[in-house]
């Protein structure tokens, strides 16, 4: 009997309140998480649906299945992954938005098909497709236009990923300034929202953006 920490004795007091079953260790009133196993459809169908070759799909699936044996990624895993890639800041918000963008079926989990279809758009799609996907990412409520609030949320999440240890140090108004400049650039008719047409038009005129769209093409 080693001396128990405060936390341990506190957690064990849950036994007395009868909300915690010490034998199985599960919390009684939460719904049981079923161990679902998603299996993707045949590889040939996926080859048709995406622009990946069979070999590429094999490689992708091996990596995917290795990390998620159950066949589907949930938001927690996304956040975990991003927090490991961006350790200085808080990437949970951005990971959440990204998850929303990947989860096309809106069922709280990204299975292999969602995953690979999105990747196919990003990596093997035309520039228009990529821009569409980016627009979809920014458009949080998927209503076809980006409002200032949505953009502000996105911007905050990106700046949060940076964290506060930057040089020069981050001003609090930096996200807001960035949103302003974005809207200034994109919003042609100054109606306070950015529609898909405005977005596409502006991006296609910007050389930097067009060039950067191709940067990650050879990632897979």
């Amino acid at each position, binding site marked *: *009997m*080693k*001396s128990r920490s405060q936390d341990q004795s506190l957690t064990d007091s849950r036994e007395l309140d009868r909300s915690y079953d010490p034998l199985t260790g599960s919390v009684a009133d939460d719904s049981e998480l079923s161990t679902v196993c998603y299996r993707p459809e045949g590889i040939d169908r996926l080859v048709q649906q995406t622009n990946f070759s069979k*070999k590429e799909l094999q*490689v992708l699936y*091996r*990596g995917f299945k*290795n*990390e998620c044996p159950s066949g589907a990624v949930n938001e927690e895993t996304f956040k975990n*992954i*991003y927090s*490991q*890639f961006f350790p200085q800041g808080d990437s949970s918000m951005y990971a959440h938005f*990204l998850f929303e*963008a990947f989860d096309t079926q809106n069922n709280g989990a990204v299975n292999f098909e969602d*995953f690979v279809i999105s*990747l196919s758009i*990003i*990596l093997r799609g035309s520039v228009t497709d*990529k*821009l569409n*996907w*980016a*627009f979809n*990412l*920014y458009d949080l409520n998927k209503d076809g236009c980006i409002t200032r609030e949505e953009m502000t949320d*996105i*911007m905050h999440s*990106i700046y949060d990923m940076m964290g506060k240890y930057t040089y020069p140090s981050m001003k609090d108004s930096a996200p807001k300034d*960035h949103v302003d*400049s*974005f809207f200034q650039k994109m919003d042609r008719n100054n109606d306070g929202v950015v529609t898909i047409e405005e*977005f596409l038009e502006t*991006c296609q005129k910007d050389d*930097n*953006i067009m*060039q*950067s*769209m191709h*940067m*990650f093409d*050879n*990632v*897979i």
Partner: protein
Amino acid sequence: MAAGVAAWLPFARAAAIGWMPVANLPMPVAPTEKSKRQDELIILNVSGRRFQTWRNTLDRYPDTLLGSSEKEFFYNEETKEYFFDRDPDVFRSVLNFYRTGKLHYPRYECISSYDEELAFFGIVPEIIGDCCYEEYKDRKRENAERLMDDQEDNKDAKLPNMTFRETMWRAFENPHTSTMALVFYYVTGFFIAVSVITNVVETVPCGSAPNQKEVPCGERYTVAFFCMDTACVMIFTVEYLMRLFAAPSRYRFMRSVMSIIDVVAILPYYIGLVMTDNEDVSGAFVTLRVFRVFRIFKFSRHSQGLRILGYTLKSCASELGFLLFSLTMAIIIFATVMFYAEKGSSSSKFTSIPASFWYTIVTMTTLGYGDMVPKTIAGKIFGSICSLSGVLVIALPVPVIVSNFSRIYHQNQRADKRRAQKKARLARIRISKTGSSNAFLHSKRNGLFNEALELTSSTEEEQRLSKSTSLLESQHHHLLHCLEKTTVSNHEFVDEQYYQQSYLDAGLQNYPSRSPSLSSQDGMTGTCCTRRSKKHHTPLPNASAATHMQPLTHTHTHQQGLQELSTIHIQPLSTSRSSLNMRVDEPAPLNCQSSQITTAIISIPTPPVTTPEGDAHLPAGPAHQNVVKVSAL
């Protein structure tokens, strides 16, 4: 970056598309992969067992051997696989680490072999998964403790120059290091026993005069007991002061438990001396005498079991604390209940709750003196519940304490056993070490013998000899030989015992005479062997006979620049020194054909800076100017 996250990097990079439209500045150029290899299966051959995996799997951890280009060193072109000459069982865990991202420690594996394999493959043990980490750490700690024990035993070895104080301290700590210490140990033990017995007997009622009541022996033989007490306290005081003097860190010694016990044991006596026979103070004086019983704790220096018990109690402090706490709770509860239950009955002994404490304790520990018993029915019911619960409360922490004690006790037993075995082990290791140095000297002689044989052309023996040393050995010996040659004045390896012997005897033998016939100044002697050293070896009847020979020739050189002969030491079974001298003076029959007994070669030590002339003529003979070599075969 952590383990399997590397697999997600392509995804994160792809998703970075999401930042592009928002970015204001141009992006940096992406790193390009030099060779866009298709993912391929690679074969890892570990001591014959073939493992196959994707190259990408291994690339996940680029800072390990398998993930970096280091594995190219192990690539076998012919079989197109990577060959590792390591343990395949442990390799399983290593490869699984790449596959799953979790490193597991198999329980049946020896901890040091596992650590070695991990070190070889460049994997840091800290990433062992939580499931196996505790086991790994426990085993590692055990191993480290064992090593530390061994090292501590090494420290016991007597250092050559210890001050008197250090010697004394060592004698106190380890009584078996010297007889004096052992005597002191037993004497103090005896006096502790005497003192304790005295204290006990003091209170026994001795016979009394018929008209007086019984008096305890202490009052009857006051003087005798006082003398005994004084003697014991003097011994204890002297012992304490000696320990205090010898302690390496006096401050730390004074704070240690044993020293406090010592002080508490002898202090009452001195206080009693100081205090007068005042009526008021004598009450306190009597209390002080109680402290004399602490002398019995001094026995813990003498008994290891007692120390283990004390250590166990200390390590089980939390269990004991829990026991005490739960007992107190139960006592208070039951005492209250019993008090109120028995309140009704007349002539009840349960006069108050604190009075009921006594009943509760006696009942819970199942003592049951019977001086307080409940009389009401309710009281009896609660009394029985009390005794049942007492059994449970006490029985629960006791096995934990017992198991702790058993573990510590066995650890101590194992430590003692290891220490006893260590002596035998060290002796065996030493024998094998001297065996290897013997082999060198032996092979050197054989080397010379071989040259002699070349001339005698007796090929069978040559073959026999050459078989007896492996290539590794012969290369090792050649290396040692080179080292000998490198040193100025050609120091030679000799056997340790002989060196020590000769070092002691060096002063005794000084042969003043110079051997006329073998003066080094003469240069070559006209022998067919053209050697300065005349060495012949008897033909070995067989190679194994070499081992029966007196193993070593021992040389010790006096570097005094005088023309003294070095002392010669030979195994006493063979010729005596005087006879050797005689042999030296003989004109040695340098008949290469004959196989005679070797003669002594004595050369005059010259100042060290000499060029060994004629060395070229000495194919292998290490007989330089100031070396005496005698091989008594």
